[in-house]
């Protein structure tokens, strides 16, 4: 019984609620009560602008936005939640747990959410709001929500895994491997978010014509430096197409450099780490470093785009950069590990044609630069609503 685990700490709910989840009736995806709950949560979270990531989540779970999501599904009449979803959420992205939880509840499930071990203020703010709503006008949903914290512990993970119909694992390869040591019930499914890398492609001519270059650069900064260029969505590769690449690169990186200098704090270990990443890669593969007066933006041009080049990726502003004349040239670095391709000035039909012609194993989403971090119910190639619900047909 869960009561026996002294390291298992309940932030929302308790052992009794956790036990009762097994006999809880699944909800319908996009259940009216759930939409109303998120609508109220959105209103509560959007009153305070202290944390931009909370505001982003609050904006994302507005009723109108969720209704739009709902409208994308044509099979909801036949869909039901699967039961209980166990979410293991990332320790170093404060608000990710809220998106994962929202997807689980929207799909019609009871949710056990393992919160980040670290005490992020954002986690407290969101949990307080959810707790208030569940204690008052949304008490009917309370049985569907259990938020917990626990140290890495196989017994606790075993116990929770045994109860779930779907297990969602964020946090990369090591975490996936560790949690997979705990067996799932035979019918249970799993959604795993492994280590990924991402890339950006910019059309030089479109960039040079743009009037809002600073905005493009700010968006790029948000996609990269804002998360130490270490999110799975952060571009580690920047590709250039078009006629005037040299001019565009000079302008773009000059602006990026200025933005980084003004906004980013590079710490000594990161500086050493970047030099180390450079030397490690350069020792193995021919490439050239673009001269710069400092280390804020490190750009390396490899002679070839080898398929193992992503293994040499680094963070804190370390970019592999290459000029291309055809999108298909980037295919070697678009293996299964490649997640997001962000773009500026590239035509959607060209991107579609690239997918059609190139058939990369990776690239799960293609979004404009600045949108890489925007959470969507289709993530990493998974349709979260459909993966966490069942389709029941009556003939």
């Amino acid at each position, binding site marked *: 019984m869960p009561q026996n685990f002294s390291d298992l700490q309940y932030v929302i709910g308790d052992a009794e609620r956790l036990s009762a989840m097994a006999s809880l009736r699944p909800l319908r995806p996009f259940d009216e009560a759930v939409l109303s709950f998120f609508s109220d949560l959105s209103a509560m979270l959007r009153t305070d602008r202290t944390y931009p990531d909370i505001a982003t989540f609050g904006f994302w779970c507005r009723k109108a936005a969720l209704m739009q999501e709902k409208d994308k599904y044509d099979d909801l009449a036949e869909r039901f939640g699967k039961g209980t979803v166990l979410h293991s959420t990332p320790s*170093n992205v404060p608000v990710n747990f809220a998106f994962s939880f929202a997807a689980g509840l929207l799909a019609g499930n009871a949710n056990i959410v393992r919160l980040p071990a670290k005490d992020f203020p954002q986690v407290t703010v969101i949990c307080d709001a959810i707790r208030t709503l569940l204690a008052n006008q949304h008490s009917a949903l309370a049985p569907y929500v259990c938020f917990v914290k626990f140290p890495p512990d196989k017994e606790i993970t075993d116990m929770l895994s045994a109860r779930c119909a779907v297990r969602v694992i964020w*946090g990369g390869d090591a*975490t996936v491997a560790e*949690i997979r040591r705990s067996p799932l019930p035979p019918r249970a499914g799993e959604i795993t*978010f492994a280590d990924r890398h991402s890339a950006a492609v910019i059309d030089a001519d479109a960039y040079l014509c743009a009037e809002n270059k600073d905005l493009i650069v700010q968006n790029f900064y948000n996609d990269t430096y804002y998360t130490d260029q270490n999110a799975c969505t952060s571009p580690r590769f920047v590709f250039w197409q078009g006629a005037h690449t040299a001019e565009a690169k000079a302008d773009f990186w000059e602006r990026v450099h200025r933005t980084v200098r003004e906004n980013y704090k590079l710490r000594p270990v990161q500086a050493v780490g970047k030099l180390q990443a*450079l030397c490690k890669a350069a020792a193995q593969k021919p490439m050239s470093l673009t001269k710069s007066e400092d*280390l804020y933006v490190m750009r390396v041009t490899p002679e070839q785009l080898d398929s193992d080049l992503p293994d040499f990726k680094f963070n804190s502003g370390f970019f592999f950069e290459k000029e291309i004349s055809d999108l298909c040239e980037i295919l070697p670095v678009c293996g299964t590990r490649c997640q997001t391709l962000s773009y500026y000035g590239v035509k959607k039909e060209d991107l579609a044609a690239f997918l059609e012609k190139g058939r990369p194993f990776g690239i799960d989403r293609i979004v404009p630069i600045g949108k890489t971090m925007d959470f969507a119910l289709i993530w990493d190639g998974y349709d979260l609503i459909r993966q966490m619900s069942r389709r029941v047909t009556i003939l």
Partner: protein
Amino acid sequence: MTYDEMLNIPPYSLGKAEKDRLLTARLKELTLLHRARCPEYANILSCIGFDPDAVQSVTDVPMLPVRMFKETALRSVPQEEIVKTMTSSGTTGQAVSRIFLDRVTAANQQKTMVKIVSSFTGSGRMPMIILDCPGVVRDRAMFSARGAGILGFSIFGAKKIYALDDDMKLNTEALREFLAQHSGQRILLFGFTFMIWQHFYKELLRLKEEGICFDLSNGILIHGGGWKKLISEAVSHDAFREKLHDVCGIRAVHDYYGMVEQTGCIYMECECGHLHASIFSDVITRRTADLSPCAVGETGIIQVVSAIPESYPGHSLLTEDEGVILGEDDCPCGRKGKYFKINGRLKNAEIRGCSDTYAAKFQ
């Protein structure tokens, strides 16, 4: 000038300009040698667009991060010429550095260390007390920086004993006997800072309270290995020296800074408590933003250069330590060259991003 000729120059005798001229020429020569013989190193130089003509001073010599030796096997001599592979101490599971030595480099490491250390201890070998256990040298699994340090310093010892047994207990009988045999003689003591504190000082303190005393006022203690654990016990450099003096009367206590990647070129602490660069090596502190050299008194990332390495491209390394250059050519102890202090390891930055959850430590 050949390295053998350099070895004839007293280690702390050259002023800034003369030393820079000498060291720059040697380091440039080593850079070209490694470029010609180590393909990975050549690739790196070509990536950063290295231009030998731009090397006007020691600070212009390109540097490798010290961690490179953990990630990549870097050697500038054929495999069959390697006589010894040294590894750094690393806690279990961590990658260790692998440093490949040929006959020349291994010999120059030892000759250099003799020059540096004997300028503090005087030439001639002394009775030596190793403040560690014999197992650290005997056991190949344990053999790492600690064992290498002990073996390296053992050349200064005439007759040697290990003061600790393999359970890290002080062997008081053997110590008493050894001191009686060599009474009146200068005695060299060597060990690792934390081991000395934990297993030697604390035991001597306990014995002293029982009325048992050892007289080491004739001793000269050389210790290294870093202060991380002592800082966590809130023991300062001064307290370390004073308290050791209190329990055994020792006065001559010299810390040293060095690393397995540049064995031989150690940085000895003088009577004023400053670490000193000899003519065989140098220390440069670097700024985070652009790795430009720091001014005297400004904290920065430590770079070390050594005139020794010919068999591996480790003559110019960016470390993961932080420190401050205190001055150059003007230490009250009279030694020329830079003197500095080490603040410790660079602080680990919490990098954002979406990896690592389950394995994260619960707080």
